[in-house]
């Protein structure tokens, strides 16, 4: 698992029930848009994340798209993060480098 993916999943799991906008996730996961959106697209393609458009607001603001982990996404995210944490405990990685044997 890559570092950005780990941070996105951690951000989602902070409140799995809460719908999150792309910009909120950027701030929470500390990822730039060019990294976050491809990740979200991939997670959505794997049906781990679901997205929906908010209802148009009266003040003329354009509706935004929000994302939420699916039930399967919550399960996989918890599992992946637990595994990543266990891997880190077994083999401490250098900062910025994935631990040996990790998916990232």
């Amino acid at each position, binding site marked *: 698992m890559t570092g*950005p993916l780990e941070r996105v999943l951690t951000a989602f799991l902070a409140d799995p029930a809460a719908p999150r906008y792309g*910009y909120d996730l950027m701030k929470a996961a500390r990822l730039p*848009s*060019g990294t976050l959106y491809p990740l979200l697209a991939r997670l959505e393609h794997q049906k781990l994340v679901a997205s929906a458009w908010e209802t148009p607001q009266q003040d003329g603001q*354009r509706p*935004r798209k929000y994302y939420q982990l699916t039930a399967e996404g919550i399960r996989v995210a918890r599992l992946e993060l637990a595994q990543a944490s266990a891997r880190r405990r077994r083999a401490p990685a250098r900062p910025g480098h994935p631990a040996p044997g990790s998916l990232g």
Partner: protein
Amino acid sequence: MKGERQLLRLGEVLVGWACQRLPPEVREERCREWAAELPAILHDPQVRPAPRRAARMLAYAADTLRGTALAPGSTRRRSPRMFAALDQLFPVAGLVVVALNIWKIVQAPGNMENYLWMLWGLLLVAYLTRKRVSPAGRMTALLGISATLALGAVFLGNAAQAPEDWVNYFFAALLILPLLVGLPLAWWLRSVQARIGGRHAAPSDPWTF
């Protein structure tokens, strides 16, 4: 905020460019999504002062360009036939410039201008070749900047030889000034983006799970 509409418009233009690289089936939705985030970033109450919000919004829009350039399925807008022909023609023209100036250097080794033209031809060919392999790569950008600077140097050299001819100053300024403004701006936007969260982003393909 003063100039808010113009800023939003600029952000939308950047997002529009990014969307052009996406596959047609997702293009419109992504474009709508990213464009809708721009005013939200520009009005984010957690970020102060206003110029910081503006920088964030522009960094957000600019980074969508990077993201779509990295996407394996990204598609550029189909070039009209004329542009496709130019794509083939430019490297040939670059090689012709190199050959011609090698011949000129042999004839008059003391003329600095010929060396600059040859350097520009070589850099142009290298840039165009590299662009085909890695359109968004760092080396491609470096070669493009170097080629532009070399051409600017050619015009500056001409201006030194013929100070009364304003055309040389004009073309030198046209080539060099955008770089002088654009490069620090790009560096600044990059640092802003890193502060938002790009500092620890993986340098590898972000589409990799």
